C-alpha cells in the first residue's frame, strides 16, 4: 500500500515539476549591477564541441579568468548548434520561461531560425561594454541576416583549404583546377556532406564560381550545376559513394593520409593541429579563386536562467586579452571580431606581433579574395538539392 503511494506521488511530482511556469529572469540595469548579481553563480555556455583547441581555450583559458575576475563559474556544454536551437524552440512551444542555456555560440542559418522563432534576447550592445570595440561591418549582418542586436560578433574567419605539400606537388589554384586535380589523383579529395556547415560552404564556393552575387537575388540553381558536381564523384574518396558526415571525419581522413586535402572556416585552424602532430608536418594553406568570410556570434536565449552571468561571460570573451589569446596559435587561431583601430596602442601591437604561421595563407591575397556569404536561403537550397549528387 505504502509503495503504491510513493509510486503515485513520484509520478505526480514529475508532472508538477514539468508544468511549473516561472517568470523569466531579466537582465540587470547596468553592467556593474549584472557583474554584482552574477557573483558566485554558474553560467552555461552551449557550443559546438568538435574541436579540441576551441574546447581547451574555453576550459583552460577563459574559465579560470572568469572565475578570478568575476567569481563566475563557467560550464561549457558541447552540443550541435541546430540541436540546442531545437531545444530552445521546444522550450518556447512549452512556454518554459526559465531554461538551462545562458549563452549560445551561433551563426548563419541557425541564427536566422532562432531569430525567426524569437528565441534570443536583444539589447546586448548597450549592456556589454566591450561591444563598443567590435568591428561594425562584422557586427551588422550574419550571413545576410541583420543581427539587430540579438547577437554580438565573437570571431571573424575565412574559408580555405589545406593540403599536404609532401604529397601534392602542384597544388591547384582555382576550383576548376581542383576538379582536374581530383581526376589526376582519384580518391584523394572529398568534402563533408552538405548537412555539415563546412561541406555546405564548399558547395557554396562552387556556386559562387558559376553565379557570383546573382544567386542572392534569385535562388534558382540549374540542374546543370548539380550534373557538373556529380562528375566530381568518381574521382572522390570512396568514388563518391559516401561522404564524411562531419568536418571532424574529413580532418581524420586527412590526418591519417587517406585524403590529401582538408578545408574549413578559419585560415589559422591548421597551425595548432600541425604543432600537435595531428596534421602532416608539410600542411600548407590553399587559397583558391575566392573565399567566403564568415563571422560567428554569441547570443543569450529568451529563457536564460542566468542572464547577468551571460553578460559577464560575453564581456570577458570580447575583451582584447581574451581575443588576442583566441587568435594566437596556442589554442584556436580564430580571427578577432574587434576593430583593431579602436584598441589602445599596446593591444594593437600585441595583435600585430602575433605574426604568421607556416600554415597561414598570404593575408593580402586572403583579403583580396574575400567574398560575403550567401544568405540562409542558399544554404537551405543546397541542403535540399545536393542529395541527388550523393545518390
Amino acid at each position, binding site marked *: 500500500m505504502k509503495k503504491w503511494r510513493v*509510486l503515485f506521488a513520484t509520478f505526480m511530482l514529475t508532472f508538477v515539476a514539468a508544468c511549473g511556469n516561472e517568470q523569466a529572469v531579466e537582465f540587470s540595469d547596468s553592467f556593474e549591477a549584472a557583474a554584482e548579481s552574477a557573483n558566485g553563480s554558474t553560467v552555461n555556455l552551449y557550443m559546438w564541441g568538435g574541436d579540441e583547441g576551441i574546447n581547451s581555450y574555453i576550459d583552460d583559458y577563459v574559465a579560470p579568468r572568469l572565475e578570478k575576475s568575476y567569481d563566475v563559474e563557467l560550464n561549457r556544454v558541447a552540443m550541435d548548434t541546430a540541436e540546442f536551437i531545437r531545444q530552445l524552440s521546444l522550450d518556447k512551444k512549452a512556454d518554459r520561461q526559465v531554461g538551462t542555456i545562458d549563452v549560445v555560440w551561433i551563426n548563419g542559418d541557425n541564427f536566422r531560425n532562432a531569430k525567426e522563432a524569437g528565441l534570443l534576447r536583444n539589447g546586448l550592445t548597450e549592456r556589454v561594454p566591450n561591444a563598443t570595440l567590435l568591428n561594425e561591418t562584422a557586427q551588422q549582418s550574419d550571413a545576410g541576416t541583420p543581427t539587430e542586436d540579438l547577437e554580438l560578433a565573437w570571431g571573424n574567419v575565412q574559408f580555405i583549404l589545406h593540403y599536404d605539400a609532401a604529397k601534392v606537388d602542384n597544388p591547384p589554384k582555382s576550383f576548376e583546377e581542383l576538379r582536374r586535380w581530383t581526376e589526376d589523383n582519384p580518391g584523394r579529395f572529398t568534402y563533408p556532406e552538405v*548537412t555539415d556547415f563546412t561541406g555546405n560552404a564548399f558547395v557554396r564556393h562552387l556556386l559562387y564560381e558559376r553565379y557570383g552575387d546573382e544567386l542572392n537575388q534569385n535562388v534558382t540553381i540549374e540542374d546543370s550545376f548539380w550534373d557538373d558536381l556529380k562528375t566530381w564523384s568518381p574521382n572522390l574518396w570512396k568514388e563518391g559513394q559516401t561522404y564524411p558526415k562531419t568536418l571532424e571525419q574529413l580532418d581524420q581522413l586527412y590526418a591519417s593520409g*587517406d585524403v590529401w586535402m582538408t578545408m574549413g572556416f578559419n585560415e589559422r585552424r591548421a597551425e595548432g593541429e600541425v604543432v600537435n602532430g595531428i596534421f602532416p608536418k608539410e600542411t600548407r594553406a590553399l587559397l583558391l579563386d575566392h573565399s567566403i568570410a564568415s563571422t560567428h556570434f554569441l547570443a543569450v536565449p529568451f529563457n536564460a536562467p542566468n542572464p547577468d552571468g551571460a553578460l559577464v561571460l560575453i564581456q570577458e570573451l570580447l575583451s582584447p586579452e581574451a581575443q588576442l589569446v583566441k587568435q594566437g596559435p596556442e589554442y584556436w587561431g580564430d580571427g578577432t571580431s574587434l576593430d583593431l583601430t579602436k584598441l589602445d596602442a599596446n593591444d594593437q601591437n600585441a595583435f600585430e606581433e602575433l605574426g604568421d604561421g607556416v600554415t597561414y595563407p598570404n593575408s593580402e591575397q586572403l583579403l583580396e579574395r574575400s567574398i560575403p556569404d550567401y544568405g540562409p536561403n542558399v544554404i537551405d537550397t543546397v541542403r535540399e538539392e545536393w542529395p541527388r549528387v550523393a545518390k
Partner: protein
Amino acid sequence: MLRSSVALTILVSLFPLTALLFLGIEATGTDWGALLTDETWRDSFVTTLYVVSVSTMLSLVFGTWLARTVVKQRWRFTSTILKIPMFVPHIAAAYLFWLLFSGANGFGGIEANERDYVTVILTYIWKEIPFVFLMMLGTYEQLNRGYVETAKTLQLSPYAQFKHAEFPFLIKPLLDSTWILVAFISFAYEVPALLGVTYPKLLGVLAYERLSTGLYLEATAPYAVALIWTCLVGFGVFVSYLMTASLRRRIERGVRR
C-alpha cells in the same frame, strides 16, 4: 504489494501508448502522399528493412545454434567467451569495426562506409549473437531431453528431430528475441551513423538529420515515419504472438487441448 505491481504494470503499458500519442501529435500536418512517394525516405526504408532482417535472422540462427551446441557439448569456456560482446556498448562496437574495416582496402576485402551496409550488419550480428545466445541458453538447459530421445527412438531424421522435439519449445524465446532486435536495430543511430553511407541512410540516421538541420526544423515527417514504423512493428508483434498463442499455451501447459 499486489496493488503496487498492478500500478506498475499499468504505468509500463501506458508508456508505449503515450509515445504513440506523442508521435501522432507531432506527425499531424504531414503530407502523407508526399511522404510515401519521397524517394529519400523510401530508399532509406528499404535499406533499413534489409539491414534489420538480415542482422536479426543471422543473429537468431547463430545465437540459437551456439546455445544448442554449448549445452550439448558442455562448453563452459565458450559460453563465457560468448558473453564478452554483451559488455561492449554499441557505439564502441561500431568504432571497433570502423577501425578494423576503414582505411584504404578495409580488412578481408570488406570496407566500412559502403552501400551494402555489410559492416553495419556484421557489427549488429557480433553484438546481438550473445543476446540471442543468452535468451536461448536457459531454454536449452531446461529442455526436456525426453522428447529428443523419443524422436531418436522413432528414427526421425536430424531435421525432423529438431522440428518436433526442440523447435516448439524455442518459439517463445525466439519471438521475444526477434522483436526486441527488430525494434532496437530499426531506429538505432550510432552504428549506421558511423559505418553507413551518405545515401541511402538508415531510418534512425535520416530522421535525426531531418530533425536537427535548419531546413527541416519544423518537419513532421520524421515523426510520421517513426509512427508508421512503430505501427508496423506493433502489428508484427501482435500478429506473430496471436498466431502462435495456442501453440505456446500448449507448450507451457504440456498438454494438448
